[in-house]
């Protein structure tokens, strides 16, 4: 049995350490991993715990990320708790297997430290990798800081392994900004954390030889459609479990999580919708603007998949103008958040003016100034009652302004 670690009430951890500690407390049976910046320290931390006897699972040092996820799928199908960590190119190399993990309904947890995708090669944080995985059938949850990375990682196991869910879960945090910045984190003690997650419960494990199982069978037009429909339903239905896990976490820690987070939204007329560490910056900017009498607010989907359309509609039911902030190259379209937020609101009674801002690619800073400028921009739309600024703009770009539509 692995030894326990005594933790302080407040620890100073960066986001990677927060991930690694949560993975240790979950006492994962198998981790198969491959290094890539900026998620490497998660794996270093885990390896050190292992070598100091604080974990007694298996650590498979594979030769690539494709193999990391392949090993995770084999291990999870064998029947036990499984997780890995990656970023960017590594995540891209995993994509084929992400679909297979989800299709086989294996509760693997992936710590994804977000980073740009090449080319040009760039090690810094943006959300290109996260967006690349969005249709793979995984539950995707976003952490805005190190505390949340820790909390959500613990909750990730509980959600993935819930008997009503059995889907893989991805916890995202911003590369470097969150992953490498030391912050105060309030951890649970080991027993408490393990008790919260609970013992792993096997479903159709390959290691139960009294019930041989076939994983990864073939289906063509006769059955494939039904499988995919069931998988989609499982994903949509997982919202209820996620909500429950958030609530039970609150009873243990008094920390509250929602599938959509709202800040300063009670009387907001304009709102920014953002992800990751930008959420906290946007909240600061909104509070500053409120001192000038501008009623600004921030909405942040905690849950990216399944996308919380209803909760988004509810959070934005009274605003006049919205800026959706996408930290990913749009690749010939409006940004992902723009599309999702528009889709959510188009079904409601409130149809505010929605703009799309592309920002922070390759780790470019998103400053308070930038965010306030965006708020001021969309206020023009709110005041005019119509679109008077370009629909899609690049924010914080050097050189001439770049906008579309």
């Amino acid at each position, binding site marked *: *049995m692995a030894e326990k670690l005594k933790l302080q009430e407040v620890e100073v951890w960066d986001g990677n350490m927060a991930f690694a500690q949560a993975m240790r407390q979950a006492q994962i*049976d*198998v981790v*198969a991993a491959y290094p890539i910046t900026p998620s490497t320290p998660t794996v270093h931390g885990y390896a050190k715990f292992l070598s100091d006897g604080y974990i*007694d*699972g*298996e650590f*498979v*040092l*594979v*030769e*690539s990320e*494709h*193999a990391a996820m*392949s*090993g*995770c*799928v*084999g*291990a*999870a*199908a*064998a*029947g*036990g708790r*499984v997780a890995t960590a990656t970023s960017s190119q590594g995540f891209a190399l995993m994509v*084929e*297997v992400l679909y*297979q993990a989800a299709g086989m309904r294996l509760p693997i947890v992936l710590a994804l430290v977000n980073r740009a995708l090449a080319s040009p090669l760039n090690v810094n944080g943006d959300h290109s990798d996260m967006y690349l995985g969005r249709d793979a059938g995984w539950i995707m949850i976003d952490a805005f800081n190190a505390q949340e990375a820790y909390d959500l990682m613990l909750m990730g196991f509980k959600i993935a392994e819930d008997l009503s869910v059995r889907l893989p879960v991805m916890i995202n945090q911003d590369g470097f900004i969150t992953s490498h910045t030391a912050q105060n984190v309030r951890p649970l003690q080991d027993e408490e954390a393990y008790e919260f997650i609970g013992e792993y419960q096997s479903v159709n494990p*390959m*290691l*139960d*030889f*009294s019930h*041989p*199982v*076939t*994983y*990864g*069978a*073939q*289906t*063509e037009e006769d*059955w494939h459609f039904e*499988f995919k429909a069931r998988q989609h339903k499982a994903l949509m239905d997982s919202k209820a479990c996620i909500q429950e896990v958030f609530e039970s976490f609150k009873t243990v820690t008094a920390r509250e999580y929602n599938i959509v987070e709202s800040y300063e939204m009670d009387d907001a007329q304009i709102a920014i919708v953002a992800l990751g560490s930008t959420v906290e910056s946007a909240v600061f900017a909104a509070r500053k603007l409120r001192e000038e009498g501008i009623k600004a607010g921030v909405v942040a989907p905690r849950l990216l998949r399944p996308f919380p359309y209803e909760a988004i509609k509810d959070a934005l039911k009274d605003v006049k103008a919205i800026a959706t902030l996408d930290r990913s190259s749009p690749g010939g379209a409006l940004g992902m958040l723009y599309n999702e937020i528009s889709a959510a609101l188009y079904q409601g009674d409130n149809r505010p003016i929605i703009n799309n801002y592309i920002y922070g690619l390759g780790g470019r800073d998103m400053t308070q100034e930038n965010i306030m400028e965006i708020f001021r921009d969309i206020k023009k739309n709110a005041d005019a009652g119509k679109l008077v600024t370009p629909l899609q703009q690049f924010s914080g770009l050097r050189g001439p302004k770049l906008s579309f539509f």
Partner: protein
Amino acid sequence: MNKEIRNLKQFSTSNDRFEGAHLLCPGCAHSIIVRELLNCTDDNLVIANATGCLEVCTAVYPHTSWDASWIHIGFENAATSASGAEAMYKALKRKGKLKDPDKPVKFVAFGGDGATYDIGFQFLSGAVERGHDFTYVCLDNEVYANTGGQRSSSTPIGASTTTTPAGRISYGEKKMKKDIVSIMAANGAPYVAQVSPNKWKDMVKKYQKALSIEGPAFINAMSACTTEWKFPSNETIQVSDLATDSLVFPLYEIEEGHKLTITYRPRKIIPVRDYLGAQGRFKHLFKKENEYLIEAMQKSVDAKWELLQRREEAGV
């Protein structure tokens, strides 16, 4: 535990963990190779299968031919799924969470030559280097059969395939077959062997050895493919006989990366042209302008046989 096998009749009528109701072509050697492995042991089995003929023909929902734990992930990663499952077994055993901790479990991966020599090469190499306790069996039919007969890096020189078709100015595949067995021995697999289904006893003995050693074992199994090699479906064993007796496909094993033993010496070595002549994929070699290739192939087979014998003698 290895099953005690006295004769073919007793073996072929013993428990069958690979069911006959599958969709492989009549005469496909894959099924013989697989059935004999599954049935040569009484241990529990976890089987990983790469994409390819074997996989698409044996697990079409809602059916399965596998009376054992079985997983297919993708074309390339059978060795890695076996790695993951084996790691989970070790972890759960250490934690005392296994249901039946005393009953031995064997981990086996099957992949075609495409899955093994090409796309899955890195995954196989990684799994062998890490030393997982598993047996990898390559079903070597020297072609991507499942996708319609394209060349792989196992395709022998002179074979006509759909991506290297023989034509007015081409005699087909131009490259030498990759020597996967030597590569795997050098990669650190403590046990490596070549088998062919016509020599079933040799095959079963090698399987049992591979399963009982600790660490990774690699077996390259010649798998005659009626469809792509183009021979009548009732001649699988005869074509395999021609392969082993002409020494195009010699049977041997390598232990600890160096100790080579030839396990079958034909009483009468037959010419390579007899083997080639039995298959449609080599038909064009018998045209006048290509005949020189048959001679060249004979020379290369002779040289390889000479090398194997010298390595065996040297014992280093």
